[in-house]
């Protein structure tokens, strides 16, 4: 199957500042009357999907929007807390598009395309305008103007926020814009649908096969283009900050239909999450990074010290971040802090029932600045912590542990956001585009909305204008085959009738990934992981037990399909991690570090996007490299000292 795919990033040339503008000017247009003749299938209704569906419908296209949840408003984007970056420079603190661009590309450890990242920074400005016009209630100052705050990795205050619910408010804005188009008859909603296959006809993406999650019926939808906005795949790790329904199925099945998967091993792990309390744990909850401004991280010096924290005297505590990183201390960057926490827990000095947590202690700040200070700054976070753990963080130190939070990898797309399958566009977290090897806080929301509001409306028109799309009907043999494939797949899952549940398999897979393809990886571990994943996959297909039937609401069957895909994707993640013999961003290979434990990037050999092609053999994907050329910035060492 392996063909000579040539990765053409379609990145325009010329001065960085004018690339997008010039590119737009050169894109072909579809006339307003003709737009009505095109049907676009938008899969996913998070920030990327809802904004795309709304914008495309406004232009006059027919849009069909699909999502798993019972309402498009519930997409995972709803959970984003912190904020969204934009280079508005309302503060006059020296921010600019260039600076946002530079911070983002540096934050990504120089593993993203310059032109993409610059465009993202450029569009960030319009996003805020658009959202405010939709009625998004961003935080404001007394003068009535928009408030901003600073976020990790930046020296300027460019993060716009809506209390701790920025993602919710932005998504509701995009959702309402989309609902307006539903009312206008331009968008048709298909909630409680799961896309299970992509239909490719004559090499073009022409439709999808979905399962109606209520009736179990398989449905075919024909379109002139498919826009995937199905989010990240971090749930491969089972325990993650993702919503339970986040999955890799849509992108994985497109991958198997020919779309290349880029940088699958780039996974971001967030240091401050509420730790696991027992094996029943179903997900992890993020606690804002800002807590590290006032909390001190420590563990007991002694192994297996089970005394309550308040009884451990000062000189028996190890403030390991402060010890290891005297300059940054508790504010060491996400990946570094996460790794340090894992290390002390691996030594057996972790705290809490499971030993997989460290203390985040506010008692010094409470003593110095008073409880009111803490209440005002972190009141709602403390409350949330108390809800979940039943412990009062004003009295006992919080317990925190890192958790999987974001996937920088995803389907490979060119500058137009089109994958290697013509007509298949990929937006938001589902693509690999703008964050390189590590994403900066508050830039995922920015990317999802830039893709949906401001990029796809231009680039999809160019595709239509340049492409002949023969009429196809759901009766086409490709649809029939696809339906049969999906049906076979589902029937197989149901017919194994083994002894282990989907949840058990998912947990096991999660443990493997967490242990070997987590915060710190090494060649040996990755080999082990690949072995284990293969074994587990084999067991899955022989010993899975899925209750119920296909012709009804059956969440276990849904999960089974998703876990089946995670089991395949997991191997690719390990393979990618193994092949990338350098440390960059969130990808830390223990073999490649400086003597003092810093990530050691290898620009000579690995300054490229690793795009993997499915060959029919999961163990032998074919690697395609898209070299990354830096014309405007010079890759430097990301130093935190």
């Amino acid at each position, binding site marked *: 199957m392996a063909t000579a795919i040539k990765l053409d990033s379609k990145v325009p040339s010329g001065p960085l500042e004018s690339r997008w503008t010039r590119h737009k000017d050169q894109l072909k247009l579809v006339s307003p009357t003709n737009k009505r003749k095109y049907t676009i299938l938008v899969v996913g209704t998070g920030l990327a999907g809802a904004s795309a569906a709304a914008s495309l419908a406004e232009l006059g296209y027919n849009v069909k929007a699909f999502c798993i949840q019972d309402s498009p408003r519930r997409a995972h984007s709803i959970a984003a807390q912190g904020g969204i970056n934009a280079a508005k420079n309302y503060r006059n603190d020296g921010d600019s598009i260039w600076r946002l661009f530079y911070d983002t590309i540096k934050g990504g450890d120089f593993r993203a395309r310059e032109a993409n990242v610059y465009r993202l920074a450029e569009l960030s400005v319009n996003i805020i305008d658009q959202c405010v016009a939709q009625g998004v209630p961003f935080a404001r100052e007394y003068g009535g103007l928009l408030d901003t705050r600073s976020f990790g990795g930046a020296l300027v205050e460019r993060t716009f926020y809506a209390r701790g619910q920025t993602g919710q408010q932005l998504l509701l804005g995009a959702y309402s814009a989309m609902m307006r188009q539903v009312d206008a008859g331009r968008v048709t909603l298909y909630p409680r649908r799961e896309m299970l296959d992509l239909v490719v006809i004559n090499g073009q993406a022409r439709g999808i096969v979905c399962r109606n999650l209520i009736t179990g019926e398989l449905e075919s939808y024909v379109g002139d283009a498919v826009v995937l906005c199905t989010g990240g795949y971090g749930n491969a790790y089972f325990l993650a900050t993702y919503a339970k329904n986040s999955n890799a199925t849509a992108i994985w099945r497109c991958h198997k239909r020919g779309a290349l998967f880029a940088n699958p091993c780039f996974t971001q792990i967030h240091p401050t999450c509420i730790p696991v309390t027992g094996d029943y744990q179903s997900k992890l909850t993020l606690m804002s990074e800002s807590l590290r401004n006032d909390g001190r991280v420590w563990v007991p010096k002694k192994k297996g010290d089970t005394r309550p924290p308040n009884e451990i005297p000062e000189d028996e505590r190890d403030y390991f971040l402060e010890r290891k990183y005297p300059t940054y201390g508790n504010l060491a960057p996400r990946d570094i802090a996460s790794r340090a926490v894992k290390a002390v827990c691996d030594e057996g000095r972790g705290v809490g029932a499971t030993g997989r947590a460290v203390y985040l202690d506010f008692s010094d700040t409470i003593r110095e600045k008073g409880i009111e200070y803490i209440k005002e700054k972190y009141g709602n976070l403390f409350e949330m912590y108390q809800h*979940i753990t039943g412990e009062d963080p004003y009295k006992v130190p919080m317990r925190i542990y890192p958790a999987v939070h974001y996937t920088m990898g995803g389907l490979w797309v060119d500058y137009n956001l089109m994958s290697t399958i013509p007509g298949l566009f990929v937006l938001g977290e589902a693509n690999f585009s703008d964050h390189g090897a590590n994403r900066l806080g508050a830039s995922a929301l920015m990317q999802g909305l830039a893709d949906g509001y401001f990029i796809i409306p231009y680039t999809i028109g160019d595709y239509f204008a340049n492409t002949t799309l023969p009429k196809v009907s759901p009766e086409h043999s490709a649809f029939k085959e696809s339906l049969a494939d999906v049906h076979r797949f589902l029937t197989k899952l149901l017919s194994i009738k083994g002894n282990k549940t989907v*949840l058990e398999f998912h947990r096991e897979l999660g443990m493997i990934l967490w242990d070997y393809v987590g915060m710190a990886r090494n060649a040996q571990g990755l080999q082990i992981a690949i072995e284990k994943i293969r074994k587990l996959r084999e067991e899955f297909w022989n010993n899975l037990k899925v209750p119920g039937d296909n012709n009804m609401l059956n969440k276990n069957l849904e999960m089974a399909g998703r876990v089946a895909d995670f089991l395949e994707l997991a191997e690719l993640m390990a393979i990618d991690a193994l092949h990338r013999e350098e440390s960059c961003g969130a990808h830390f290979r223990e073999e490649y570090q400086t003597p003092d434990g810093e990530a050691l990037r290898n620009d000579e050999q690995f300054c490229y996007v690793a795009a993997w092609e499915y060959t029919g053999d999961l163990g032998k994907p074919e690697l395609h490299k898209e070299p990354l050329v830096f014309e405007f910035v010079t890759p430097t060492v990301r130093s935190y000292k």
Partner: protein
Amino acid sequence: MTKKMTLHLRIWRQPNPHTPGRFVTYTIRDVSSDMSLLELLDVLNEELIKKGEPPVEFDSDCREGICGTCGFLVNGVAHGPKRGRTACQQYLRDFKDGETITLEPFRAKAFPVIKDLVVDRSALDRIMAAGGYISVNTGSAPDANSIPIPKEIAEQAFDAAACIGCGACVAACPNASASLFVSAKIAHLALLPQGQPERIRRVLRMVEQMDKEGFGDCSNHGECEAVCPKNISIKHIAIMRREYLRALWSL
């Protein structure tokens, strides 16, 4: 303090919309009090699957109280005993050891039961489509700071906009009215300068759609506010009525 508990779950089981449902009681032993209620259901489902019985279907997604996917009645109260929280944020430590917990789906004509604890709330989306938006095409927005909005107004708008669309207000309302949900959106947009041009149309159309969907009328029981996980105040219902009066006036 973590402790082990035994709990009895009395759950509404209904295989599909057409077959009548009934309560079935299950006992789960030795579970940790740190577990969430939904995790307890996960544990129960694992046991049921192993025994070859159909697991209990329920909706959930974010499991941190923001997406609005989860929700059912816990001992007669929508979302459960702890106020200001969704079902996914209820923890076993807030129940008594040995207690029987009754779980029943949200009930309203506009929320038909799909299976077990899963109901269809798409009526709320249709109400949103009828006017829960500001008409502004992508790309046509003026600079975000061109219209200052007093902080207080922005905060009030936020209080209304915080609604997660869970439908607990409908479920708890003795009249099965969607007034709190609908009014929260109307109030959010009516408070902002951007929402002014469509004020009249919005309230008339959203209320009309709400009625069409078969929700009840509001008798001011205020139960909705008490169960709302986002503490949306019935003040917004009053605002919706003022908006409606304004609209009638100007017709």
